[in-house]
């Protein structure tokens, strides 16, 4: 372990092409871009499906399907197959195959949680809003969306964790990212390098998760009222579904 920290503290480990610095930038870039693409592609559709209450079987089963498909297999299939392993700008070798895999594996948690979030809004509240004369659009923006937001953000957080993990595995197909420090360490029998790479990957993963968790708390519109409730009386707690993906 001590040698691993020595590796992490050594400036040479970070510099140069394929150093820790470049790999870290690559992996963060891949994570941010693919999460953004996946969100833009799927969130509006999933919210809309939740609003009209259709397509639930697909929205929920997509997470079950996503779990059964090995990330590594998809990376291999894409990079050996039509997408190839060419360098894609700042994303590095096999950048396209990696990006596509990351987007694919970010979709299930985003879709399932957004759908369940909107669908799970108490129908009586929606009815009340309709009775007050709210238009469908307003019902969505003023009632369903705020109430679904915590679960939507949970989905984004789970997708973030999934994407970061998948980006690490890209190194197994000689793709970009910090996984390379781990795989190169194995290739050169450098256990300090292997451990150093693993520590860095784990620490950044925990920082990302922590930041996402904090953002989730901050944006939750019900937070204030929940806190108030805790002091005044014990209200029946709403069961929060957190599908593990």
């Amino acid at each position: 372990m001590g040698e691993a920290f020595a590796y992490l503290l050594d400036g040479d480990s970070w510099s140069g092409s394929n150093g820790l610095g470049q790999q870290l930038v690559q992996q963060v870039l891949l994570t941010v871009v693919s999460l953004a693409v996946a969100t833009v592609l799927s969130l509006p559709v999933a919210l809309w499906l939740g609003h009209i209450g259709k397509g639930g079987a697909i929205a929920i089963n997509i997470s079950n399907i996503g779990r059964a498909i090995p990330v590594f297999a998809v990376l291999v299939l894409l990079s050996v197959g039509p997408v190839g392993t060419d360098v894609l700008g700042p994303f590095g070798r096999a950048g396209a195959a990696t990006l596509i895999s990351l987007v694919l594996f970010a979709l299930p948690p985003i879709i399932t949680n957004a759908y369940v979030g909107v669908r799970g809004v108490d129908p009586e509240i929606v009815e009340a809003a309709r009775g007050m004369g709210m238009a469908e659009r307003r019902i969505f923006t003023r009632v369903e969306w705020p109430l679904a937001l915590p679960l939507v953000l949970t989905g984004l957080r789970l997708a973030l964790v999934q994407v970061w993990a998948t980006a690490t595995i890209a190194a197994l197909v000689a793709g970009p990212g910090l996984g390379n420090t781990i795989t190169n360490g194995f290739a050169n029998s450098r256990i300090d390098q292997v451990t150093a790479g693993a520590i860095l990957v784990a620490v950044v993963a925990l920082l990302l998760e922590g930041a996402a968790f904090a953002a989730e708390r901050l944006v939750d519109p019900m937070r204030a009222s929940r806190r108030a409730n805790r002091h005044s009386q014990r209200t029946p707690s709403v069961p929060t579904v957190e599908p593990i993906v």
Partner: protein
Amino acid sequence: MTLAAGGSTFSASGPPCYSALVNDWICPAYVSDRRTEIADALLEHVLITLAAVALGFVLALPLALVARRYTAVESAIVAATTIIYTVPSLALFALLVNITALSPWTVIIGLALYTLTILVRNMLAGLRDVPADVKESAVGLGYGPGRLLLRVELPLALPVIMAGLRVATVSTVALTTVGTLVAYGGLGDLLSNGIRTDFKAQILTASVLCVALAVVFDALLMGTQRVLTPWTRGRK
């Protein structure tokens, strides 16, 4: 990319769909020529998955019981399992190598740790949902804590626990492939060998087998649950 077909076993005439010149995705000849190698990888995959899920279950049950007994510990246990889950598999295996070296245990322990997240949560949820009046009746009938747990609480919590077990098992089947980092990845070893040698038939076969294995495990667990909890069958 070279066209070397990743094998040494092509004859003069060559198999129809993989050779130095042909590299098809779908290739029955590959499956029959390499059936021993494929079966070995599949068996290793099954054993690693079973060992990991079994170890995870054995660890999760006492954790869930402790968490249920002491509420102060509950959030700590749930938080710890969430933190483990956040660490990417490749990094977790790499860290475990420091302890377990290049052995199947690196993969088994790593995957078992991942299953704790869902297993502990579902065990807690399942036990919590057992109706209080049912527990009171059992206590009134003279059930001690042990018998109450084994004969009343666990059976009633079984559907939720089994749901967690299914999710954990399916995820474990998929994640076992990453074990190829330490050369114990079951079908994942065929995948990494396939990418080194640009062998499409091997890659597709291993991928399909891996998904099929997850589906089979899921179906088996669903069947087991139906047998174990006959009272849930009428409901829908």
